[in-house]
Each structure stands twice: as structure tokens, then as C-alpha cells.
């Protein structure tokens, strides 16, 4: 029983980290309509900045730099590339982001090489015990930070002019623009927010129990795509739900792999999120909490 509970808690805390990344996808998508395939590289960039800077300036300042750096890269990608697309369609933007991802990921991979860089998080490899259940402290901190982050997002989107403006811009760009909302500003805010969330997630993905920063982190950020899709393309609460579901699914499938292996094959934990995603898309093409597309003729 305690094994099951450990798996569930592990899955939920991992799911919260995934939901940070998924929320980044959702925010960029709603604010600019871009499917940000470079998001995984931005997650890696955030973690990489912390790993490289923390020996000289300490963990928290390095974290701050990483947050700024990731946000800045996002804003620049939007301002310099996305807004200048020759053919501004969602498909072209998605492919553009694949190109950005190739460049960023290749350069980061080259810099990291074969090393695994520790991020030097202050919670180290310690473990928190609740009775028989042991969880890495990093995961507990991650859960706390994620809850705070989503509370802040909720406040932003429902209580501030900027957040309400972003929602208005997402709902109907031209009308929002006529109402005096500057679309360039809401778009930049969206990209910056996504970058910040990505950097935070990057640090949690690379601290204990993960050994450190390696290029494969960008791929595990891809696991947040099913979480995002599951929740609904334009819904931040959906990203939380999707993240938790995907985290739970992969933790349970990996945790009980011994029993499932004859049926599903080894390593199914990595594939399970995508299977869940395809099934959900088949039944509900706009995700669990996404707004349905209406076609009027």
C-alpha cells in the first residue's frame, strides 16, 4: 500500500512540474497562437544557466538570471522571428519553432557535451518522510512552488488589467486591439511568462532524483505536450489537470512495470502519455477543459 502511495505522490509531484511546462505551452498558444516546439529547449536553457552560474554567484542569483534569461529568449523569439513570419499561419509558426528548437538544442547540447551538470539546488539529495512514504525534498519544494506559481497566474489572469487584457487578446485579437489593448505587449508578456515557468520547471526536472542537466531534459519536456493537449489547448487550469494525469499515469506505469511488462513491453512509461493523448484527442478533440471550436456557416 505504501508503495502505491509513494508512486501516486511521486506521480502527482512530477505531474505538477509537467503542468508548469504545459501551462507555458498553453500561455504561448493563447497569447500568440504559436505551437512552441522550442519550449523544451527553453526548459533546458533555464536549467543550463543555473548549472553554469551557480558555482560562481550562488544558486538563488543564478536562478534569477535563468528566469530572466529564459523569459528574454522567449520575448526575442516572438519579437524577431514569429512576428516577422513571411506567411503567418499556425503551421508555419510551428515549423519555425522546430527550426528554433534545432538551433537552441544543438548549441546547448554542444556546450553540455557528455557531462551531466549538477544544478546545485540547496535542498540537495535529501528526502522528506511522511510515515512510511519517502519523497525527495526537491519534489516537495516543486509542488509548493508550483501551487504558488499557479495561484499567481490565477491572480494575474483574473485580477490585473494586464492579465484580463491577455485574455481579451486571446479571445478576439482585433477587437481587443480596438479596445486599446496593445497586442504586442500581451504577446510579449505571454512569452516571458512561459519562459519563467520553463526555467522553474527546468531546475526541478534536473535536481534530485534526476542526476543533473543533460540534453535529454529537452525531450522529457516533450512529455508535457500530452499534458497540455489533454487539458485543452487554451486552458491553464487544464494544463494543471493534464499535468497531474500524465504524471500519475507515467509514475504508475513505470512503478508497476514489472507486472505490466508482459502485456505492454518494457519502457511503456515513456509512451503511456502519448497513448493517453491520442485516445483523448479521439474522444474530445479540444481536450478536457479547452474551449470547443465552433464553425458557423
Amino acid at each position, binding site marked *: 500500500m505504501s508503495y502505491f502511495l509513494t508512486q501516486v505522490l511521486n506521480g502527482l509531484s512530477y505531474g505538477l512540474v509537467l503542468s508548469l511546462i504545459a501551462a507555458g505551452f498553453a500561455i504561448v498558444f493563447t497569447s500568440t497562437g504559436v505551437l512552441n516546439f522550442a519550449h523544451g529547449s527553453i526548459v533546458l536553457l533555464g536549467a543550463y544557466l543555473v548549472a553554469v552560474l551557480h558555482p560562481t554567484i550562488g544558486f538563488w542569483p543564478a536562478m534569477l538570471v535563468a528566469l530572466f534569461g529564459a523569459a528574454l529568449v522567449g520575448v526575442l523569439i516572438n519579437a524577431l522571428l514569429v512576428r516577422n513570419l513571411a506567411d503567418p499561419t499556425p503551421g508555419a509558426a510551428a515549423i519555425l519553432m522546430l527550426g528554433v528548437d534545432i538551433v537552441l538544442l544543438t548549441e546547448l547540447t554542444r556546450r553540455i557535451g557528455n557531462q551531466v551538470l549538477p544544478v546545485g539546488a540547496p535542498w540537495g539529495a535529501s528526502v522528506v518522510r511522511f510515515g512510511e512514504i519517502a519523497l525527495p525534498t526537491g519534489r516537495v519544494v516543486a509542488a509548493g512552488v508550483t501551487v504558488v506559481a499557479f495561484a499567481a497566474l490565477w491572480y494575474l489572469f483574473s485580477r490585473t488589467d494586464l492579465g484580463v487584457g491577455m485574455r481579451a487578446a486571446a479571445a478576439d485579437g482585433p477587437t481587443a486591439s480596438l479596445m486599446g489593448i496593445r497586442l504586442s505587449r500581451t504577446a510579449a508578456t505571454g512569452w516571458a511568462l512561459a519562459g519563467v515557468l520553463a526555467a522553474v520547471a527546468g531546475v526541478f526536472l534536473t535536481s534530485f532524483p534526476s542526476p543533473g542537466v543533460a540534453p535529454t531534459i529537452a525531450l522529457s519536456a516533450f512529455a508535457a505536450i500530452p499534458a497540455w493537449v489533454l487539458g485543452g489547448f487554451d486552458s491553464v487550469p487544464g494544463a494543471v489537470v493534464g499535468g497531474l494525469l500524465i504524471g500519475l499515469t507515467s509514475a504508475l506505469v513505470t512503478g508497476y512495470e514489472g507486472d505490466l511488462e508482459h502485456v505492454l513491453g518494457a519502457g511503456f512509461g515513456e509512451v503511456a502519455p*502519448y497513448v493517453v493523448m491520442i485516445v483523448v*484527442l479521439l474522444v474530445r478533440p479540444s481536450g478536457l477543459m479547452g474551449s470547443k471550436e465552433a464553425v458557423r456557416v
Partner: protein
Amino acid sequence: MSDLLRRLGGLALLVVALALPLVLNDFWLQTGLFVMAAAIGAVGLTLLVGVAGQLSLGHAAFAAIGAYVYAWSTGETTTSVTGGGLPPLLGLALAALVAAGVGAAFSPVAGRLRGIYLGLATLGLVFIVRHLLLNLTDWTGGFTGRSVESFALGGFSFSNRDPDYLAVGGVEFEGLHRLWYLFLLLAVVACWLAGNLRASRTGRAWANVRDSETAAAAMGIGVARAKAAAFVVSSAYAGTAGAMLALAYGRVAPDVFSLTASVDFLVMIVLGGLGSVAGAVVGALFVTALPLVLAEYSSALPFLAAPGSGGLDPSTASRIVYGVAIIAVLVFLRGGLAGAGRRLRHRLGGGGPSGDAGTTDPDTPGPGPAGRTAPASGTTDPSTPDGSHPAAVTHPRSKETTR
């Protein structure tokens, strides 16, 4: 440029391609085989993404299915893997058919989803197929893969044996030379079919679905059916390309068909210009040959370091180059290389009454053996030296295809 000139150009290219094995060394022959295999995959993807407007990140999954179906069906049963022991030609056909079948099985998803949503769903396919390849070890050989039987036709083998010695014009034709002609035949047929398909009723229905599903439905096109058909055709192309890759490598392994391979296919068609068959071929040439050539000649290029030395190694350099290339094309070069070529021809031809219509009109055929003017327009005799741009002929249609 008149249609006649275009055809002559295509013919000249074909003659060059036929003569190349006489002069190329093994490295370039091998590169050529990879390019032709990739070109067929890219042409299939450009039909799906460029013509029908369905973004797919799962192309490598279908290529993997084709490659493994070929490897399994023609392979012999050994201690580690099973095999069907079928004739290679049948194996090649099966590769295309099974891939098409899987594409059809995926079409309930494809029919319901649109644009990037579909792209995300197909992303899942890559991971699922990879999982199957790793786990169905009896058929696939697992992580290390399995070797592939060489192609043979009626006792003539496309390898270094059977016949042991075959020379044309004093050059010994080995397996690579023989495969070159097989691949060239497949590539030309594939491009020709794709060009015709795009200009046909089906192709125009696909373009209509791409531009507006609602409008297409209102005009009597079965949207779900059209999307499913595009998926099936493109999967068949991918399956063929996969089988050819298997033949060119002589071995199949799951890592060849990773997500990166899917992205590479997309890069090819975007660089070449979405919807353009000739563009897809040029894109395949660039994306496939660049890393191989940089690796082969890295010692001669001063800015490249040996792999693993921490400097800029050839594969890193080529990835950065085509990452930057894709960004540059999307930002600066509307319609990719094919679009730029079209505009250039336009300018050289002194322009026409069609003005700028050609720039976003994907129905305008590109150059190359497959670039035939849409027969459906049927208003001009191709041999009439009227000197007008083909866009002038297709102009009435370009109104509905321009976004």
C-alpha cells in the same frame, strides 16, 4: 519559361542522373541513395502538409513501418529474428501497402483533427512505433535492429554478387550503382505520380480542404474522406521511402526513425517550399547530403573539429546550418526555394498579366521531371510558345487557393 523548356530541363536532369554512377565514387553514390530515399518521403509529406494542409510529425513512424515490413517480409528466419522469406519486389510493395494501411487506421484521428492538433497527435505515433520496434524483438531485432536482404529481381541482385561482375562503359557496376538505378526509377515514378495527383481532381480537393474545410464541404467535398486519403497516400510514400532507406543502409534500427527524422522530413519540405514536388526533392538533397558531406570533408574544412573534441563537429555544424536555414526561409523567403524560383522565373520572363499571383499559388508546378502543367486547366497546348507564365493559366483557381 514555356512548358517545353521545362520538360527539356527535366529531361536533361534525368540524363545527368542516369550518367552520374559512371563518375561518382562510393561515398557520393551512397549519399545519392539516401537523398533519393529521403526525396520520396519528402514528396509524400509535401502532398500531406503542403497540398492537403495536414501537419504531420509522424512521417518517420510510417517510414519505420515500411522499413521493418520490408526487412521482415524479405528476411530469413534466424536464431534471433523471424522473417517471411518473400521475394523483394513483393516486400517493397508490402512496405508501401502496410504503411498505407496503418495510415488508414490512423485516419479516424486524422479526420477529426486539424492543423497543429493533428501534428500533435502524429507526434504520439513516433513514440508508439518506436516503443513497438524496441519491444517486438522477434520481428524487429529490438534496439540493435536487424539486417536487410538486398533487393533482387528475377535472379539479378542489386548487391555486389549475382552477377559478380557487371561493367558499363568500363566502370564496374556494384551494388551501389545498381541500387542507384532502382532508386532513380522509384523516385521519378513517385514524383511523376505526385505531380499528377496534385493537379488532379483529388489534389485540388485536398488544396480546397487546406484552404477552408467549410468551403470545401459546401462544394461537395467529403472533408474527412479527403483528409484520410491524403494520409493514406503520404503514408504509402513514407513506407516506400523507409524500405529504400533500409536497402541503402543494409540494416534497420529504431534510432534511424526517431522524432528527429520526422522533423527532418518537415525541414525538407519547408525549405523546398510547401506543396512543391521539385522543392521537396531539393530540400531532401540539402538536408540529407549536408551532414554527410560535411562529415566526409571535415578534415578539409578549417572551421570544423573532429567529433568529440569539443569543437564544432560536422553533425553539429550541419544541424545548426539547417536550423538557421529553416528560420531564414520562413522569415524571408515566402514559399521556400520553389517560391523563390517561381518569382525569379517570373522576373526573367518579363512578368505576365498574372502579376504576383504565382507567389502563393502552390498549384503552380515546379520544375523537374514531375512539373507538368495542370492538365485539368486544358486551355493551352503545352507546346504553344506563348511565353506566358503557367500561373496565368491557373489564375482563376489561384483566387481560391490564396489565403
